[in-house]
């Protein structure tokens, strides 16, 4: 490929010291400025790394009025001090942040693939991208030579499964060194719609393909394409077990080896990640009435047997080492090899499909009424290569299908598409339309919040009904678990800073199944602890799965099994072994609390982050329609008797639904009161100055924003 170098920046290569490079890389694709920025001790103390660094850099770069497509919006990718070690499973994550086109506030995604660790070992603690190019560009980081370049990108291809592979081959030193290159890219849909993602590649030496892991949520791909970036490419070939230069390699290795052995012994019986990845959850969720079906109406249906994990096990190539970073023995990244799509531009061509993971199988399967795993695999493939987020695609399509069911949409309005539940051809056509930038797919690709407005304004649909069934909060689509019967999870979803993603808290079993957190105070404590604990993964560049998808054999006998105390101690140990800094399980939470509150205040800079932004659609809380109520009538009637002391006999379904709704909505509000208080926030959701001081996040610029609200 003929490429013109538009800007170039040489830098000195220097080893990482105890997890840090102490500098970040700034690239402005508009002005073509490339620069190194020093990392101060304050940044390390208060922001740690990963998402903390991303948000800190972005805070300086954007204005209160910045919109997603303003040139000053940034895409920050950071890694964290623990990222890139090859000893402890789950240590290769990058954290991506940007001002989201869907929410207008910072979104953060935790993503695997080799780009993060390689960029870190090329000499950078974060990559900060700003500006808008006037022609298509690639940013190339050569970590072997100490060189950063912005180059032209006349490449015809945008779709990731082809582009990533082409670029890996182009930038590798030789065909036997493909594993040293990683690419970030998106796809054609990111030029036209907003529910988009970024793909981070890793070269799979066994399959000889570029595998793709998604920074899925919040429309990162759209920001990328708005900047006219076709790809980011990194090359780094020096990886060893001590490239991260830990102070105490033996302890790091010992702790990693202990977990490798635990996974080796427990995977088959506990989580079957080696066989089927997170799709092992399909029947578990269906059994517990938690698998979203038909836009989250139901959590269980006999048809869901079609998406049983055994179906996916049969499709996945078995016996492969499927880690998204070296050293991850949990290896959840399954792939369907030689899949031949039956539709679209790649029809009939054998491709390697990464996944489906649980979220994709549920979102692009049961939630839109599709129960054929091959259809799910095809949607998964096209979502990835076009750069569409499978979660938002699933939830947005489910919303459109329910609108179709209710006559809000019809074939005239959808341009002839029959959006009946389970119509896989129509779902796929929506995707192809997103990639072509035409038809009703473009409307669906704007996301649920935009569709609600369009359907009310243009088709006269009842805005209240759309609000009730539109599974979004803050502008982001819900991920794929039913929260109706778990008040704590309603909070876990809807209070999440970036929007309803389950990565802050997944409390359904603790709350609904095991009833371990019965009171508001218990739930609030869980909604404080778990979001903070999980935020820590994003500060360090870690994956959540090896924390609690696999547990030590004696975990159930510990005092707090839900926290997996032995694994928490592992994290404390490896943090100390890498950084040489003091750490215990309390300081771990404090590190997160600082950044979490910073992110909260960041949202407030954009006028968001208020109590009204933390409201769920009623579909996430209880039955919206009579059909839903009647399908679980015994449960809801019992609820009326037990919780409200109400005799349901003689009441119409509508009356019962109204009483249940009033009760549940009130419960949710009480939960919010309890959680805000536990988090050190006012009843309006504003962090108090006292609280910010007590956790050490009282930077003047932070207090200045908070004071606008107090």
């Amino acid at each position, binding site marked *: 490929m003929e490429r013109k170098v538009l800007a170039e920046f040489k830098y000195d290569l220097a080893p990482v010291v105890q997890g840090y490079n102490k500098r970040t890389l700034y690239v402005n694709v508009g002005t073509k400025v490339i620069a190194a920025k020093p990392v101060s001790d304050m940044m390390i103390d208060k922001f740690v790394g990963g998402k903390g660094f991303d948000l800190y850099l972005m805070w300086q770069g954007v204005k209160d009025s910045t919109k997603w497509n303003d040139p000053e919006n940034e895409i920050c990718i950071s890694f964290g001090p623990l990222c890139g070690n090859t*000893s402890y499973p789950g240590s290769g994550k990058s954290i991506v942040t940007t001002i989201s086109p869907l929410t207008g506030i910072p979104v953060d995604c935790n993503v695997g693939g080799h780009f993060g660790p390689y960029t870190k070992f090329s000499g950078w603690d974060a990559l900060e991208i700003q500006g808008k190019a006037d022609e298509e560009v690639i940013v190339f980081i050569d970590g072997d030579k100490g060189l950063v370049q912005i180059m032209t990108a006349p490449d015809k291809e945008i779709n990731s499964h082809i582009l990533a592979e082409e670029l890996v081959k182009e930038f590798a030193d030789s065909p036997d060194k493909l594993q040293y290159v990683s690419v970030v890219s998106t796809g054609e849909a990111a030029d036209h719609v907003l529910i988009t993602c970024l793909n981070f590649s890793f070269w799979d030496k066994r399959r000889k393909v570029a595998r793709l892991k998604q920074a899925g949520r919040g429309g990162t791909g759209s920001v990328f394409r708005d900047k006219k970036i076709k790809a980011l490419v990194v090359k780094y070939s020096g*990886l*060893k077990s001590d490239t991260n230069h830990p102070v105490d*390699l033996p302890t790091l*290795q010992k702790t990693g080896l202990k977990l490798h052995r635990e996974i080796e012994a427990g995977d088959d019986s506990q989580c079957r990640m080696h066989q089927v990845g997170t799709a092992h959850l399909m029947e578990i969720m269906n059994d517990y009435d938690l698998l979203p079906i038909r836009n989250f109406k139901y959590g269980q249906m006999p048809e869901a047997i079609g998406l049983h994990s055994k179906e996916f096990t049969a499709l996945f190539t078995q016996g492969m*080492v499927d880690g998204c970073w*070296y*050293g991850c*023995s949990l290896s959840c990244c399954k792939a369907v090899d030689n899949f031949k799509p039956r539709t679209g531009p790649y029809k009939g061509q054998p491709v390697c499909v990464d996944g489906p993971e649980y979220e994709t199988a549920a979102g692009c399967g049961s939630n839109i009424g599709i129960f054929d795993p091959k259809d799910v695999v095809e949607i998964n493939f096209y979502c990835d290569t076009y750069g569409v987020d499978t979660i938002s695609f699933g939830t947005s399509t489910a919303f459109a299908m329910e609108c179709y069911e209710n006559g809000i949409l019809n074939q005239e309005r959808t341009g002839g598409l029959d959006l009946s539940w389970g119509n896989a051809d129509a779902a796929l056509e929506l995707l192809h339309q997103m990639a072509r930038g035409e038809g009703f797919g473009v409307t669906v690709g704007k996301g649920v919040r935009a569709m609600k407005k369009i359907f009310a304004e243009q088709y006269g649909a009842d805005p209240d009904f759309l609000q009730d069934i539109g599974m979004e909060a803050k502008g982001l689509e819900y991920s794929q678990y039913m929260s109706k019967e778990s008040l704590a999870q309603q909070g876990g979803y809807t209070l999440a800073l970036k929007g309803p993603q389950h990565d802050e808290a997944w409390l359904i079993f603790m709350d609904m199944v095991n009833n371990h957190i019965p009171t508001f105070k218990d739930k609030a404590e869980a909604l404080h602890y778990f979001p903070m604990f999980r935020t820590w993964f994003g500060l360090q560049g870690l994956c959540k799965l090896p924390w609690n998808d696999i547990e030590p054999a004696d975990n159930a006998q510990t005092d707090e099994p839900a926290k997996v105390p032995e694994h928490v101690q592992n994290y404390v140990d490896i943090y100390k072994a890498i950084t040489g800094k003091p750490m215990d399980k309390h300081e771990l939470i404090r590190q997160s609390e600082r950044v979490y509150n910073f992110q909260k205040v960041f949202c407030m800079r954009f006028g968001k982050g208020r109590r009204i932004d933390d409201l769920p659609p009623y579909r996430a809380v209880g039955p919206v329609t009579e059909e839903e109520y009647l399908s679980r009538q015994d449960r809801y009637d019992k609820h009326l008797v037990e919780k409200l002391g109400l005799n349901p006999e003689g009441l119409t379904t509508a009356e019962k639904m109204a009483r249940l709704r009033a009760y549940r909505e009130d419960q949710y509000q009480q939960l919010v009161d309890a959680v805000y208080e536990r988090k050190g926030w006012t009843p309006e959701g504003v962090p108090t100055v006292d609280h910010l001081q007590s956790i050490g996040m009282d930077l003047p610029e932070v207090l200045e924003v908070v004071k606008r609200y107090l």
Partner: protein
Amino acid sequence: MKVLKTFPDKCIACHACESACSKLYFKEDNQAKSCIVISDETHPVDMNVCNQCGTCVAACPTLALSINNQGVIMLNKNLCIGCLMCVAVCPTESMRTYLGNQNPFKCIACGVCVKSCPAEAIKIVTE
């Protein structure tokens, strides 16, 4: 397949094989750095060494482990990134490591220990 075969009944637990092995590969006389390990707490003694079963080869994410044309599993240090996943999956705990080392190590059936053994308790055989 070329493999180092052990005969625990004959072993007199002199540990000469360990010395020979660690001296050849690590230039020091140190049981912790020997590919063959003799534990004399039991009777007959336990002689632990790789049987070239190949479980580790499938677990290696970088293809640093491969089987050569004699059936011996070899580790390519240039490709190894030291994750120790091979150590964890080895069914006989014969993929060896010592903490702080960059890479694991294993018996490649070179036979240096055979020559050092006074009791004929180890032999290179082709199976």
